[in-house]
């Protein structure tokens, strides 16, 4: 696709017409099978996926897709990962690709249209992305079933960070927890979801639109976990009566409304104090609160594309990401919690001090999300937006 892009741009620019935009599909349509029939392993034909080769091919360019803050923030982990990976595998080169604006949908679309996908690895896959893939493509599609025997360090991953994929396509590499962030000079810490309905917290909470925002959707799922599929809409109706305000994105609610002191509470991440102390903010306005002594865990995973050309390097990369140093750097630079058990990662004391782990982590797993997620979000949004 990249070459065609280049030819298209060059031709279009030179001739200033559409002449350069026509290209001939010279390969056979070999990506049609991305939609599932390569996953023979899942339908009865029990054979180990990607058996380990005698001499793995660790040369060449590995293309890794990730989201912006992984590669493009002040302290992003991406550049570090690239350098460290390349020094460990001297014949390899790691090339970052910025996740297109449509996120996982871009790749779902590509697969539906039979476009080949150039990238080898996807770093930053959520459970709901996986559900989206399987709800839209044939089950088990888009990514390869992993042979975890080839990823030595996969055993280090903490219990509870299993992403629940029945087709074993994804491994967690870090996790964040959704929690409340509040201003202790204005409100007391709410202990439970019911507390938020008290008059004390009237017009004090900022949340995000579950249609458009990751933490917003996580908070909604958290309420579904707490009140059940039949009870969550009632809870939200009560929240609305108590004046919750639902803005579009984490950015609007946090950098816009919360930082401008519109309200004393916002749905955010339990790692908030790490940023707040780094930016020199007063920590009294950055207290982390866990409702019901819980936090909603959003594990982030990595997976290898079905179409990957550098399969051996991709396996090596997955293993590398779970190494001690990589886990520490990702955690501290991206301000997320490592995916491995404590003994396999050394974190700075400062990180331990400011990044808070909830007493109990909750997540709605793959099985429950499958086929339900869209409906839950849709019902919630209709209830909420109806005039």
């Amino acid at each position, binding site marked *: 696709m990249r070459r065609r892009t280049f030819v298209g741009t060059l031709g279009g620019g030179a001739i200033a017409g559409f002449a350069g935009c026509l290209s001939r599909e010279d390969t056979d349509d070999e990506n049609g099978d991305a939609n599932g029939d390569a996953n023979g392993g899942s339908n009865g034909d029990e054979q180990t996926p990607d058996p380990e080769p005698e001499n793995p091919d660790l040369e060449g360019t590995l293309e890794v897709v990730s989201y912006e803050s992984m590669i493009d923030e002040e302290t992003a982990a991406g550049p570090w990962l690239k350098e460290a990976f390349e020094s460990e595998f001297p014949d390899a080169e790691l090339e970052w*690709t910025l996740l297109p604006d449509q996120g996982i949908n871009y790749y779902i679309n590509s697969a539906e249209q039979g476009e080949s996908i150039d990238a080898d690895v996807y770093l930053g896959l959520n459970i709901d992305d996986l559900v989206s893939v399987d709800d839209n493509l044939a089950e088990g599609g888009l990514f390869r079933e992993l042979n975890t025997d080839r990823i030595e360090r996969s055993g280090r991953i903490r219990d509870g960070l299993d992403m629940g994929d029945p087709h074993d396509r994804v491994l967690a590499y870090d996790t964040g927890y959704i929690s409340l962030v509040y201003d202790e000079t204005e409100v007391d810490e709410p202990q439970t979801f019911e507390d938020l309905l008290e008059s004390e917290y009237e017009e004090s909470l900022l949340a995000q639109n579950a249609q458009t925002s990751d933490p917003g959707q996580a908070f909604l799922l958290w309420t579904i976990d707490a009140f059940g599929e039949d009870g969550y809409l009632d809870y939200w109706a009560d929240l609305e009566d108590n004046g919750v305000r639902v803005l579009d994105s984490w950015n609007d609610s946090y950098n816009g409304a919360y930082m401008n002191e519109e309200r004393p509470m916002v749905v955010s991440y339990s790692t908030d104090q790490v940023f707040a102390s780094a930016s020199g903010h007063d920590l009294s306005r950055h207290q982390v609160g866990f409702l019901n002594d819980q936090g909603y865990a959003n594990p982030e995973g990595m997976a290898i594309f079905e179409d990957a050309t550098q399969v051996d390097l991709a396996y090596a990369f997955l293993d590398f990401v779970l190494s001690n140093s990589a886990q520490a750097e990702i955690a501290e630079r991206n301000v997320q919690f490592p995916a491995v058990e404590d003994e396999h990662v050394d974190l700075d004391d400062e990180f331990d001090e400011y990044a808070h782990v909830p007493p109990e982590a909750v997540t709605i797993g793959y099985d429950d999300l499958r086929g339900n997620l869209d409906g839950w979000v849709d019902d919630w949004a209709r209830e909420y937006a109806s005039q």
Partner: protein
Amino acid sequence: MLYLPTGIVLTNAVVEDGVPTLAPFVEVLTDPFYFGALADVFADPLAIGEHLQSLAGWIAGISVSLTVVFSVPLPSVSLEIPIPWLAIDIPGVRQGLFGFTAYQAALSTVASVAIGLPAAYVLANYEFYGRQTLRSLTILPFVLPGIMVAVGFYAMFGRSGTLNTILGGVGLGPFAFVESNPLAIVILAHAFYNAPLVARITVAAWESVDVRAVETARSLGASERRAFRDVVVPQLAPAVLTGALLTFIFTFMTFPIVLALGGLQLATVEVWIYDRIQRLDYTEAATLAVLETILSLGLTYAYLRYESAQTGLSQAASPPPKEALFPDLQTTLSPRRLAILGYGLVALVLFVGPLISLVIGSVTDGSGFTLRNYAFLLERQLEGESFQTQPWPAIRNSLLFGVATLFIAVPMGIVISVLTVRAGRSGTIIDTLAMLPLAVSGVVFGIGLLQGLVFGISLPGGWQFQVTGAVAIVVAHAVAAYPFVTRNVSPLLSSLDPAMVESARALGASRFRALLDIELPLVASGIVAGAAFAFAISIGEFSSTVILASGSESYTMPVAVERYLGRRSGPAIAMGTLLLLVTAASFVVIDRVGGRYEL
């Protein structure tokens, strides 16, 4: 480039599994969530009696009562003035998503016109220091990405914002401007975007009013007010209505602003289209988009019919003279000048406030003044990796695409304008279709581009039609921009006296020569206004650019701003400030260069 991607998406609404169907329309039209009370009418259009009955019940529910309300008591002054108030109690009607969207768009349009017209009046009639620069900058809000405006509004009007800090200095507040009435703030934000648009289009028309016609009316005994009403107003009306129409269409399709400032309670149709597309439910998205487009195009058609009925006023480029705004102290204290000063203050708070607050935000952090955000940009430029977004390529691409857009959109807009003005009644339909880029939701256009051009369309014989990168971006920008050129040029062109062209032709000029020497100079102010819009559209365009620039080097300034928005906003706001400065400088240049041709 426009019809193809749009067509691809819209086909989803009427074709299901290869079979044409109207089922999605029926479903949406009869869903009270979308159409509120109207849904019943759509569901059973023949039960007229029943509908009339419920209408009568509703009308009977309206009551008018005289009450006395107290003006907003200020916390520190606690001054209460009783004001008699006619309270009209209207029983609630379920508006549905479409109803609410139209309602807020109508309010936003009224606000934009009310705030834009005084600005046009001042800019067109008075001379003061910096007038030309100010006129150039009226277009600035137009290029700001929605998120920047939202952050700017919070920084200005928020509880700890600039305005409350100022008011706190004189012992007032703090007021919860944003919190207490989100709808009002959203409407103000829409006015922030669109009032300058109304002002700009109106100024262009006002400056081409033939002052001799006013003088003739006056010499025939018309009072100043009468001359204004009978001579000037008819010439301004098409421009004001163009501004109002564009504002309505834009605010009808608003998306980021309502959600960022108002929240989900103020969701619009566009929000649902975006959500449907996110959930890969193209059928419902396309159905909503078709309904939205029909509505905008219908309005456009109605307006164009009106506009073409307004022709026949001959005019020459003899603009009214400008008075000095503040010639001396005594004149300054006249009621009219004081009103202008008052308006200036309001404009300062509404327009300059959010922008200044943004600039302040870029050089401060939690603990005070800092240049860290700019240092980040500089460092990123000097040491950044190739896969990271750098400031300079973004600035360069924005300017390059902007200029390239001008070269396509301005001739295209003028040609369409000339064609439709000459074509009479059938021209109205062509003109309406030419407005399609404005009437199609940005989200739909973006997704159409993705499916139709980025992924490529298979043609027979194994050929693949595919457009990506810079060329595609420029074409997308030009398509979005040319209607502005047309809309700025058409009213002027249609009110030109055909006799002038005919004389030129009779004296031996070719048709092209006549266009070049007679018509274009007379509509130059419209062309310059249109060109500025085209440039602004290109600089500010986000939704298709971000899709077309995915994974390539063709990102622009707004895309860079969005990319820098991670968990902390500092560098993004700094990049946004750069966007402001670069764009402001470009507009001053465009208007100054263009101004030379205005005579």
